[in-house]
């Protein structure tokens, strides 16, 4: 293992993390909910498709609206940091399907189980985090170093 010091960005990473923690805390205390993006996306989607009432979903939809506004608000003050993808469309579709099925089956993702779950000292969330972290490390290892 070697650390890529040239791309290591501890300051902005920590600042970003603090903002994410602040936002999760605000959503928990202000709205009484867990800022888990997988659930926040899936729940209104399911209500929409099943014809259920949308009123209970308003809070979640508004959280997503805020999330989608973020790059636009950022751009008012600074250019967005560069973002690059190193897989083609087929890889993206495969990635999306795995993530979509996985976060629903495991009932959470990096935010719900990762940030919020670990902040609550939930053993259930820790198990899920270890599973997705382990699988993430293994997948990148296989794709980059084994084949």
């Amino acid at each position, binding site marked *: *293992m070697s*650390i*890529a010091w040239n791309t*290591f*960005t*501890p300051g902005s*990473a920590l600042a970003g*993390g*603090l*903002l*994410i*923690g602040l936002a*999760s805390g605000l959503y928990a*205390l*202000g*709205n*009484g909910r*867990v*800022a888990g993006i997988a659930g926040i*996306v899936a729940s209104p*989607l399911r209500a929409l498709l099943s014809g259920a009432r949308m009123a209970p979903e308003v*809070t979640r939809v508004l*959280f997503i609206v*805020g*999330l*989608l506004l*973020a*790059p636009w608000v950022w751009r008012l003050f600074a250019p967005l940091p560069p*973002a*690059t993808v*190193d897989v083609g*469309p087929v890889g*993206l*579709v495969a*990635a*999306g*399907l*795995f*993530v*979509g*099925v*996985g*976060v629903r*089956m495991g*009932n959470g*993702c990096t935010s719900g189980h990762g940030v919020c779950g*670990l902040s*609550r000292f*939930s053993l*259930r969330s820790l198990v899920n985090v270890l*599973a*997705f972290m382990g*699988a*993430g490390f*293994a997948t*990148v*290892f296989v*794709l*980059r*170093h084994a084949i």
Partner: protein
Amino acid sequence: MRKLFAVTSGLIFGLGLIAGGMTDPVKVKAFLDLFGGWDPSLALVMGGAIAVGVFAFALAKRRTRSWTGELMEIPSSTVIDWRLIVGGVLFGIGWGIGGFCPGPALVALASGMGSAWIFVAAMVAGMLVHDRLLTPR
């Protein structure tokens, strides 16, 4: 008021994802690449978020209603089953392939990144496939 809290939370969350580098899939994969040049930045994103989250959720635990009067809906499940683990593994595989997890993918989509649109469309399809076919009833 509760609507304002929800939008503001989402906005700050998204700004945090951008600041932390989570919206750059190549950076995410550099964190997941333990055996290449490892970029530990994302561990600090997670650590910073949890450092604040611990206090917020400790306060939230003691409340029955939120600041805006909504009933608290903080998960209470402690079930550890195969769905939790297999779900995590599947998510991790997808995260490793693309470098996108759900939140950053939505932010990247809103910023106009074409590949994020493809990823999110497939992710939503995956969610629907799960809810239609793989949910135990």
